[in-house]
């Protein structure tokens, strides 16, 4: 038995889930790519999510509200891709989102819905308060939505039940899965239909780069804004989102980079003291275990604790912090220029938050990396802002297919009647 959380809360058997999804995929009134009925629903949802009372309670839901604004979504689906004449839904999409980054569940789902798919989302049994809140708003909003929307979208949870995962995998046309390497490996053992495909979002890590010279030339207000943006990038999901920065790279001559880094950390410490992120005892211990471990392996030259909410690790030359070491643990590294950082970048790296670089410099850096890592270079403070393109994939396109519609290619001079409409050969 599965627990259904959307469109309404109830228990239902696996057969009914599968039958519902197949029916939604074949229904005569099924959703299309860029469907108005979906736009209406997502727009209503956007309004609900941006209500001040909700935003105060769960600020992390507000960016989702902005993301779902009708004007932008409609613009995306109106634009046509050069190679395709028409975009159509893929069919049934099975989502296995990350367990605890609550809002991440909604972004790929919304894009897949916008592409017209029937979606089934497997929710973690370990929910968070924000996830519960989000599901409540979703259930409320979908009451007013078109029946075709309600019939084709499903959020379920179930325990470790391979039978369910296998059946949903076999039934879907696209499987979107997030997770650590082991999770992805395990999920891949459940076969897909021959024409279906996987879109894996494996574990990634992120960093940020700051130009020491620009930092030194930035006034108080500017520095404060950068530190606040960084704080949100890092602490919003306990620094454990793939896009949250683990290492801060200072780019510039040694002395200048070190001075700028020290100033940044002092400001961050002051902000942390003011915002007081919740760091419990086990997290404080986790940070000790992780950072002492970095010292054992000589990855860290020094480890400084500024209370339990902020730990600063001076990395040994040639090292970046590659894995989560507990909320508020940052590696510090200095490089003379971006080129010196390039050899340390791997395919694991996802987002670089930046401050103080020109577009051309960043483009040149990305070109040099040539896909060997880093899919996003975004300003500090926007690391967690979900975008249509994520992990290097344009999700709206991945969730849809291109249809070619071509007419006979005949010189217009000989067949002027072609404009009149379809004719036989």
């Amino acid at each position, binding site marked *: 038995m599965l627990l259904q959380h959307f469109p309404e809360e109830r228990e239902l058997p696996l057969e009914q889930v599968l039958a519902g999804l197949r029916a939604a995929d074949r229904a005569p009134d099924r959703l299309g790519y860029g469907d108005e009925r979906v736009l209406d629903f997502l727009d209503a949802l956007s309004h609900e999510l941006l209500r001040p009372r909700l935003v105060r309670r769960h600020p992390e839901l507000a960016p989702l509200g902005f993301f779902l604004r009708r004007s932008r979504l409609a613009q995306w689906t109106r634009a046509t891709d050069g190679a395709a004449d028409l975009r159509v839904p893929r069919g049934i999409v099975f989502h296995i989102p990350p367990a605890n980054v609550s809002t991440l569940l909604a972004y790929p789902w919304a894009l897949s819905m916008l592409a017209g798919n029937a979606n089934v989302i497997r929710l973690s049994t370990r929910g968070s308060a924000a996830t519960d809140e989000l599901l409540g708003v979703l259930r409320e909003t979908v009451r007013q939505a078109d029946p075709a929307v309600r019939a084709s979208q499903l959020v379920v949870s179930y325990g470790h039940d391979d039978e369910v995962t296998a059946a949903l995998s076999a039934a879907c046309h696209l499987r979107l899965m997030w997770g650590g390497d082991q999770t992805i490996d395990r999920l891949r053992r459940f076969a897909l239909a021959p024409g279906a495909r996987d879109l894996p979002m494996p574990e990634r890590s992120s960093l940020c780069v700051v130009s020491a010279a620009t930092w030194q030339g930035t006034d108080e207000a500017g520095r404060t804004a950068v530190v606040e943006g960084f704080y949100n990038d890092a602490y919003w999901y306990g620094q454990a989102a793939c896009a949250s920065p683990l290492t801060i790279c200072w780019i510039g001559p040694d002395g200048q980079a070190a001075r700028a880094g020290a100033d940044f950390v002092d400001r961050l410490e002051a902000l942390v003291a003011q915002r007081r992120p919740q760091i419990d005892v086990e997290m404080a*211990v986790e940070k000790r275990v992780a950072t002492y471990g970095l*010292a054992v392996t000589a990855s860290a030259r*020094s480890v400084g604790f500024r209370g339990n909410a902020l730990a600063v690790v001076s990395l040994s030359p040639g090292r970046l912090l590659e894995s989560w070491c507990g909320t508020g643990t940052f590696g510090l590294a200095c490089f003379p220029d971006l080129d010196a950082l390039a050899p340390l970048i791997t395919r694991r790296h996802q987002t670089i938050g930046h401050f103080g670089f020109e577009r051309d410099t960043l483009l040149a850096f990305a070109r040099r990396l040539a896909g060997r890592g880093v899919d996003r270079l975004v300003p500090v403070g926007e690391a967690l802002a979900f975008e249509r393109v994520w992990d290097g994939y344009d999700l709206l396109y991945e969730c849809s297919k291109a249809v070619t519609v071509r007419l006979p290619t005949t010189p217009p001079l000989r067949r002027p009647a072609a404009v009149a409409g379809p004719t036989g050969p």
Partner: protein
Amino acid sequence: MTPDPRSGCFTLAQADREAVLFPALRELTAHHYRHCAGYARILDATGGWSDSGRGHRNLGDLPWLPVRLFKNHVLKSIPDEEVFTVVTSSGTTGQPSRVHLDRQAAAAQQAALASVLRTAIGPRRLPMLIVDSGATVARAATVSARRAGVLGMMAYGRDYTFLLDADGELDRPAARAFLAAHGRAPFLVFGFTFLVWSALAAFAAEEDLDLSQGVLVHTGGWKKLADLAVDNDEFRRHFARFGLRRIHNFYGMAEQIGTVFLEGTRMPGLYCPDFADVVIRDPDTWREAAVGTPGLIQVVSTLPRSYPGHSLLTEDLGVVHGVDDGDWPGKRFSILGRLPRAEARGCSDAVGG
């Protein structure tokens, strides 16, 4: 103060204890700093050891390692060729801890454990009722902490009887025979706390056993019993009804093997042997917490010389009830529970298959 000979290695009042332990632990810190490169890198990186310890004034100042480091890293202060045995911890998840002992350290930890247990049991090996199954100690491919615990304890007993059969069921005839043969003179009962409760407590009540000559030694934590709403008081009260009052819970960990904190029988709580101590730390400030204030337990011991485990921050919460006010001198404390594991709340942590 003249130590009571019956107190074995539980003789030092707190001030005397610190006067002995502090220089010894400072020397050990210096020793491991010289002989364990990973340990030295930690102290260098964290600034925990300045000027060879001259900046350190008392026990609470000395650097500590989180106990879980021994799961993730090999930390030892002896060359590979001198490793005599590697002790591995239990732990339900992930990798076990690995603690490296040379011959000398292995002997020292056994002697220390013996000196503690002598305090509870007396100088002679007693007939022993083992609240476990003989199958647990049978030679097996896997090293289980439970097997190691039972085998280690068997050194203090003789004429062994296992209370459980191979299927884990109570072996009533064996238990009756044991009590008939040995029940009128001191005997030893050993088992893991949860098994002692689930197997022996009910059996004692059913048959109204006379356990008045018994010494019960048990270990393993209260988590499972807490689920049954059984705490140490209830545990002791239950067995007292059958005359069993010499009950000693003990607290120790693989990462500080040989160091065991022993429960007293009159004033409740765990007591520290002369070569060890506990420091309760406030997890916000990391300073020593006052008597009566709960915090994380740091355990210090002069035993670990072959690996840097002489000062460890555990993941157990505890509280000191009193100092120099109980069955034995020194701190009197209890364990309040285990910290949960911190969870990564990130997208790396998906729902799974």
